[in-house]
Each structure stands twice: as structure tokens, then as C-alpha cells.
């Protein structure tokens, strides 16, 4: 861990930090009571990756200076970070007893009450903070985060009160405008749109707030802003599933169907965004089929199927889509179709459609289930009517397991029978394996 840290910030910088820490340590010998100096030292320890000494020194400071507001604030922040509820409660109690808390302590108290789920008390602290003449960026940032995570809280009321009568102009910081948006949204104030117009996602750097901004923009029909905010949120937190979902919706409503389809497949469970209607989904499906992206097609089919519980309805132009898919498979030179879907039920329905649409190739459906995948293989025997499907649990992390699984799979009567294209079941599995490992599918999924 330490090596990683040294690699991350560099030996030279690390040494400079240590020299600074050494100098401050020496300076504490003359003035051990200086809370600011020692708090600075705690910060240096953290930068050096010395978390335990930082905590230890802070605790010692608090024992020595229990009434010092900055020390108390730092202690609260530390336990908020570590979510140590047992210690947070008495600390918050001690902070409450301080007559005129400074901004840092109020902020720390607000965070502490939030972690302790004392939302009213946290809101009260924010209200006090907002009453100050000059609201710092730190206050706004924390308030914005609070409001975004507790949209129905009394904090909004407090914020609303604090903002009452405040004139909106371009000089207001984006975060403040964002808080205003949230306040107005709760109060069904039409000014939301007005505030939204003045915020640009580039002014905000917190992924949660960006996502919330995207949500607000989408809600008020500002597709472009929703796309920009969601994209930036995803740049900061690439795994933010809700942001991905929102981006799919925003793209589709903005008319960027291909992008929507691509984005949709990056969702870990191919779950369609709730905001996406059947019409948009169908449009994406058709678009993906026209683009001959089988994976997009199957992903959207799975998503749609999941949403509506009926596979067939999501292939309105099934002939065209299927033809495109078949062409795609043929272009790739393989007789095996592979779809990635979510449920067994979907798999069965998928086979129905494949049969009805004169699908004559053996097809394998891979069902994602956490780290495991379930292989649904549809194997022809004597003709379309005799086709059957089986499922075999396999692990995708190695060829051997797959080969073994295929042995388990083969049922008497189906094994070694040749289909029209002349592929045996074992060859079929080998091909599936090859497909999965050589990963055009994986790549498309990513």
C-alpha cells in the first residue's frame, strides 16, 4: 500500500511532505497548545498516508483541548468519515453545548447529524449556516450534497427560507443555483427552468450533484443539458448505473438512438431506463438492427422483454430485425447465434421468436448471472419441431470448465447429430467457446 502511495505521489513529493511534517513536529515543541498548527500536522500525516497516526494525534488533541471548536470539528469529520456512531453521538452532543459554533464546527455538526440520521438537526445547522452573511463554497457544496441525498428533508425548507428574496443572477455560483433548483422543485416552483438555464455542468464536479442536475434537466425537457450532465457524472463515476440509465433516456429523447443503444448495453444488467417508453425502446431496437448490431438487438430485446414481460411485442419489425441479425451472423462467418439475456423465461420466448422467424441456425443464449453464466443451447435434431433447449451452468473464466459443461449438457439423441449447416453439438460448443473467448461479444458488451 505504501509503495503504491509512493508511486502515486512520487518519492520526491513524499520526501518534501515528510520534511514539512518534521518541521511542524519540531515547532510543536515550543507551542504544543497551538491547535491550528497541530491540525495542519494531522493533514500532513494524512497526505503521507499515515492514517492511524493522524487519528491518534487528533484524538490526543481533543483530549487536551476538548473545547476547541476546530479540534472538535476535525474530530467530528473524522468520525463521520469512519462512520463510528458510538463516538459520533457524544461528540455531536459536546458540539451542541458550544454556544457560538464557528462555520467549520457547524458544518461538521451538520455532517454528523446526517450520519446519525438526525435530519432535522442537520437541516437546522444548514439553516444557521445559510443565515451567515457570506456563504462559503464549502457550505454550499455540502448543502447541495445534503439536499440531493435528502430531497424531502426539512433542509429544503430551511434552504428555501434562507433563499427567500434572493435575486437570481448570473453571478450566483452554480451550486447555489442547484440548491435553488432543488428548493423550487420541491415547492413546484416554475422557476426551476430559469435556474437550470443558468447552470452548466462544467461548473460542477460532484458526480451525485451532476446526476441530480441531469435528472432535473431531463424532467424539465432539457435533453442536451441532461446528456451533458449525465456524461460528466459518468466521467467522474463510470459505474454510476442510474446515470447511465438516464443517459440512455436523454439520448433517445434527443434523437441519438444509436448512442442510446450503445449506452444501454453498458448497463450492467441491461435494464431499460424506467423513463424510456416502449416507443423509444422499439426505435432503438430497430435502429440497432439496421446497424446490424446483433448484440444491441439482443440486449434491447432482453431489456424490453424484461420490462413488458412479453418478448414478441418488442420485435415489432421482427422480420427486418431478424434478417439483419441473420445477415450479421453470416457476415461473421459462423452459424452460431449468441444472445446475452437475463432470465430463463426470456430464453424460452427468444426461441419461440427465433423459430417463428424461420431461424435455422443453432443458437446459444448466454444468461448473465453474476459471475456465472447459464448457457441455453438450442440444438436441432430432426427438424424445427424437435428442437429442444437445455441449460448448463458454467463458469466463463476458463475453457476447461466450458468443455466439461458441454459434456454434461449433451443429451442422448441430440449429441453428434448434424444440423443443416453440418455442425455437431460439440463443435457448436467449441464455437461458442471461441466466440466468448475471442470476445467480439465481450467487446460489444463493454
Amino acid at each position, binding site marked *: 500500500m505504501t509503495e503504491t502511495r509512493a508511486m502515486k505521489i512520487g518519492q520526491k513529493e513524499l520526501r518534501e511532505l515528510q520534511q514539512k*511534517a518534521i518541521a511542524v513536529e519540531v515547532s510543536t515543541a515550543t507551542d*504544543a497548545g497551538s491547535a491550528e498548527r497541530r491540525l495542519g500536522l494531522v493533514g500532513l*500525516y494524512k497526505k503521507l498516508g499515515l492514517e492511524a497516526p493522524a487519528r491518534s494525534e487528533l484524538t490526543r488533541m481533543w483530549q487536551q483541548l476538548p473545547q476547541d471548536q476546530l479540534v472538535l470539528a476535525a474530530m467530528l469529520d473524522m468520525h463521520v468519515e469512519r462512520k463510528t456512531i458510538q463516538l459520533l453521538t457524544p461528540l455531536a452532543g459536546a458540539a451542541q453545548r458550544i454556544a457560538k459554533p464557528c462555520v467549520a464546527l457547524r458544518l461538521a455538526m451538520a455532517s454528523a447529524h446526517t450520519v446519525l440520521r438526525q435530519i432535522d438537526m442537520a437541516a437546522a445547522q444548514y439553516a444557521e449556516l445559510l443565515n451567515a452573511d457570506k456563504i462559503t463554497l464549502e457550505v454550499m457544496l455540502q448543502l447541495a450534497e445534503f439536499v440531493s441525498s435528502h430531497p424531502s428533508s426539512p433542509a429544503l425548507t430551511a434552504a428555501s427560507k434562507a433563499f427567500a428574496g434572493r435575486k437570481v443572477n448570473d453571478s450566483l455560483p452554480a451550486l447555489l443555483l442547484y440548491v435553488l433548483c432543488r428548493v423550487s422543485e420541491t415547492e413546484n416552483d416554475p422557476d426551476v427552468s430559469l435556474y437550470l438555464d443558468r447552470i452548466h455542468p462544467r461548473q460542477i464536479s460532484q458526480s451525485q450533484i451532476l446526476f441530480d442536475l441531469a435528472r432535473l434537466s431531463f424532467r424539465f425537457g432539457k435533453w442536451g443539458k441532461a446528456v451533458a450532465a449525465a456524461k460528466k457524472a459518468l466521467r467522474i463515476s463510470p459505474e454510476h448505473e442510474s446515470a447511465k440509465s438516464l443517459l440512455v433516456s436523454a439520448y433517445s429523447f434527443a434523437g441519438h438512438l444509436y448512442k442510446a443503444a450503445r449506452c444501454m448495453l453498458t448497463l450492467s444488467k441491461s435494464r431499460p431506463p424506467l423513463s424510456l417508453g416502449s416507443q423509444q425502446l422499439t426505435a432503438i431496437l430497430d435502429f440497432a438492427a439496421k446497424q446490424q448490431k446483433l448484440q444491441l438487438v439482443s440486449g434491447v430485446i432482453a431489456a424490453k422483454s424484461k420490462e413488458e414481460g412479453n418478448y414478441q411485442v418488442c420485435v415489432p419489425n421482427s422480420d427486418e430485425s431478424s434478417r439483419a441479425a441473420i445477415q450479421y451472423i453470416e457476415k461473421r462467418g459462423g452459424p452460431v447465434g449468441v444472445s446475452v439475456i437475463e432470465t430463463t423465461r426470456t430464453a424460452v420466448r427468444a426461441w419461440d421468436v427465433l423459430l417463428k422467424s424461420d431461424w435455422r441456425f443453432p443458437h446459444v443464449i448466454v444468461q448473465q448471472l453474476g459471475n456465472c453464466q447459464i448457457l441455453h443451447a438450442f440444438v436441432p435434431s430432426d427438424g424445427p419441431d424437435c428442437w429442444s433447449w437445455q441449460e448448463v451452468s458454467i463458469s466463463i473464466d476458463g475453457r476447461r470448465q466450458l468443455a466439461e459443461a458441454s459434456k454434461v449438457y449433451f443429451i442422448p439423441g441430440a449429441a453428434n447429430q448434424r444440423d443443416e449447416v453440418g455442425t455437431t453439438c460439440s463443435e457448436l460448443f467449441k464455437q461458442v467457446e471461441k466466440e466468448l473467448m475471442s470476445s467480439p461479444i465481450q467487446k460489444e458488451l463493454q
Partner: protein
Amino acid sequence: MVIGLENELPVAIDSPHTQAQRKQLVSSIVNCVREVTTAVPVQEGRVPQLGFMLLNGSKIYEDSGAYVENATPEVRTPIEAVIYQRANELLLLKALQKAATRMHIKPADIKLVRAVTDYAGHYCGMHVNVSARRYEAADMVEHLTPFIITRFYACAGSIGGAGFTMSQKNPAIRTVASEDTRQNRGIINLKREPLANATFKRIHITHNDATMSELSTFLTVGCTALVVKMLDDGVCVGPCYKLADPVGALKQMDNDFYWSELLNLASGLRASPIEIQEHYLRVAEVYSAGHDEVWMKDVVKRWRWVLETLRTRGPKGLCRELDPYIKLRLYSTSLRKHGTTLKEFSQWARPIAMAKPCFDGGHQRDIRNYLKERMPAVGFYFLEEHISRNRLNWCDLPRARRLYDKMISMDIMFHDIREQGLYFRLRDANMVNSELVNKAHLHEAMCNPPRNTRAYARGSAIREAARESGTVASWVEVRNRNRHVQLPDPLVTTYIWQQLK
């Protein structure tokens, strides 16, 4: 600030004896203490203990494991701790004479050893106690650890499986912080036993070697007390030198007589032990400059001197002052007389330690086959591998084993607290230069308590009540059937007898 020093002294008997006899001798020595000075039995709470609180405020008792424990009275300066440690030892030597006569053992055959190992696989302790007002030891772990393990002046030098090493106590350490002093010993001891009222905390530093050099002991006690005092005053020193693996560092430093081998820090950087000590010293110098206490200035002056000397002149520069370097010179000379070197001796140390249970050093024609038949196969494999890797000769093993035993005897002799002990003979031959106290100090301390702590009150109360029947004492009380004195504050020197109902 109140300082105290505790020593557990193993007893070695040269003539044949049983374990029971040794134990009996320890009890007898402790019992005879009463005959050489005014003392009353110890009673902590309701539990009587085999030991005595002495007129000079000290406590001498039999510790578990058959050690004589010598605890100095509460003192205010490190030099007083050194004085009372030796004064009590002089009392113990008088008691030893009486006990030996009583048990029909020649006094010359008994060694009372100031060391933290008996070289029979047991570890005892030299503990430095420092009072604190604000913080417990647990609050200081991060700050104290780098300091404690890099105190080269607190090392005594040792003979072991790695040859001659810096510390006797290092092999016994298992963890960074622990309350346990027997099995899972830690660098920092977390025991909470204030032995005073609630406003006092007792920082109980157990990771020390028992050094013979007065300068070593003075620095061990003084530097430790000074650093604890600084930390207790809110000074922040040490965490920027937090070690990545403190227990591993102990092993690493054991063969580093120059104290210059780089240790891995938790931050990803590296620093030498001497650099770490210098940092603590720099802070201590700044701190002591702002305080009037003379002992602090004395400590930092001597601390600076030993550091500078080690840095500029290496071990040679301290070969008359500090235990490990005195021993280094002494043992090197001795080995040279036997036609070998310390390096060669160190190479033999490990195979000897491995073969020790099966081989007493007697003459064997084919030592390899002799050991192969007696040692476990795995043990023999490693022994053979070590011997071939270091290009040692099997036939040298018996001679090396005899030499090894001799060196261990020499080390025990070095720590013998009698005037015939090797250290004291070196002192008399003017080969060491580490004396800080004179005989007048010692005579004064043998029968007078320090005047500026509660030890004075305790000593005075003991003087008054020693002849009354049933008088017992502890660190915090002197009592008998009729009256008692409470001593909750280690700094209060006056006392009032209170009648018991």
C-alpha cells in the same frame, strides 16, 4: 513528573543445585532484606506479597518466575533512579550474603544478574515508569514506538542465535502494543495501573534492556521520561517516522552496530534509526530550552553526545560508555585470543543454537553423524544447509559450541551486580567510563528516601511504624492494626496518620 525504575534480577548458582533450591534462595534473599535495612512487608490491598517496602521508599519482592524484583522509589530525575537502582542492589548483595550462609551455599557461587534474560529461554524485565497527567500509553503508541525501538543506548548487547546482537529483549517482542508482559509482549505496554489517584497515569515502558553502564541506564530512563513528558504536554513527535513493520525493524537493527541501516517507513520512505533518534532529540532540545528543569538539559546534552559520537566515530567511539559497544570490544578481544573473529563466531551461533538440545559440546569423533542420529530430520537438514552455505567445517562445531558457552558465561558475568562482576572489574580497571554516581550518593540512598516525592512520606512512616506489630505497606499506603497513612498523590511528601476504627 515522577519516575520509577524496576529491575527483575535472575539468580544464577554456579554449584550444582535444583530449581527448588534456586527458588528457595530467591525467597531467602528477599527475606534477608529485612535484616539489612528497615523494611515492612508488602501488602497490596488484601493480598500479602513476599516482599518489603524499604526505608528508602523502594520495594523489593519476589516476582513470579523466581526473580528478585528491585523497584526504586518514586523519584523526580533520571539520575536519582540510577542511584536508587544501585543502592538497592547493594542492599540485596548484603541480603544475599546472609541468605547464602543460611542455605549453606558459598556466596561466591551465587550471581545476582541485572539482565533481561537468563540465557535459559526466559525473559524478565527492566521497566521504566513515568507518570503522565493527560494521556495513557494507548494514546502515545504512534508517537512512542519509533523512539522506543531506536534507543541504541537502551540496548545491552547479547549473545544469541544471530551471534552478537545489540539487544537482549528484542527476540521476546511479538507485537507493537499489548497489555501482556509474558507471552505476547509488545513494544509499548498498555497496562493501566496508575498506583496513584485518578489524576495520574503511569506509562509503563517495558521494552528496555537492563544495562550495566550508568550512562546507558541514565539515558534510557532520562530520554524516555523526557519524551513521555513532551508527549504528555501535547508536543507531537514521531508519527512522521512511523515504521512500516516495527517488530521486523527490531530484528533488522539487531545486527546494525552503526545504527545506520535504513528502515522502511509507513509513508513509503526510508530512514535510519539514528536519523529517527536525531529527530526526537531535536524536538527535545527545543522543548528543554523552554523549561528550567536541569535534568532535561543534562539528558539532552548527553543524548546529543552519544548520537554525535556514534554518527562520527561509530561503535569504537562508545566502547567505554555504552553496554553493547563495551561488550563489542571486550568480546572481540576475547574471541581474537581464541583464534576467531566476531563474524566467524556469529556464523557459528545459529548452528549451535539449532544443535544445542542434542549436543553439549563434548568431544565427538564424527559430529555430523552424531547429530544426524539425534536431531529431528528437518532440524538437521537446516543445520547442514547452513553449515555448507557458510562453508563451515563440521569438525569445528564442538570447539565453537564451547566458545559459545564461554561467551554466554562471560555475558552473565558482565551483568553480575557484585563488585566481582565483569562490568565492575572493567570499571575498576578504568576500561569503562560511564560512572555518574559516587559512593556517597549510594550510601545516602540506601537508607534515605528521595525528599521530593511521596517516597519520603512512605519512608518516614515506615521508619515510625516499622516496630509496631502488623505494619504493612504498599505504594499508596502504610498501615497497621491501629492507624494508616494514605499516599494517593505521588508528589505529596507530607503524611498524616489516621486512626483506624
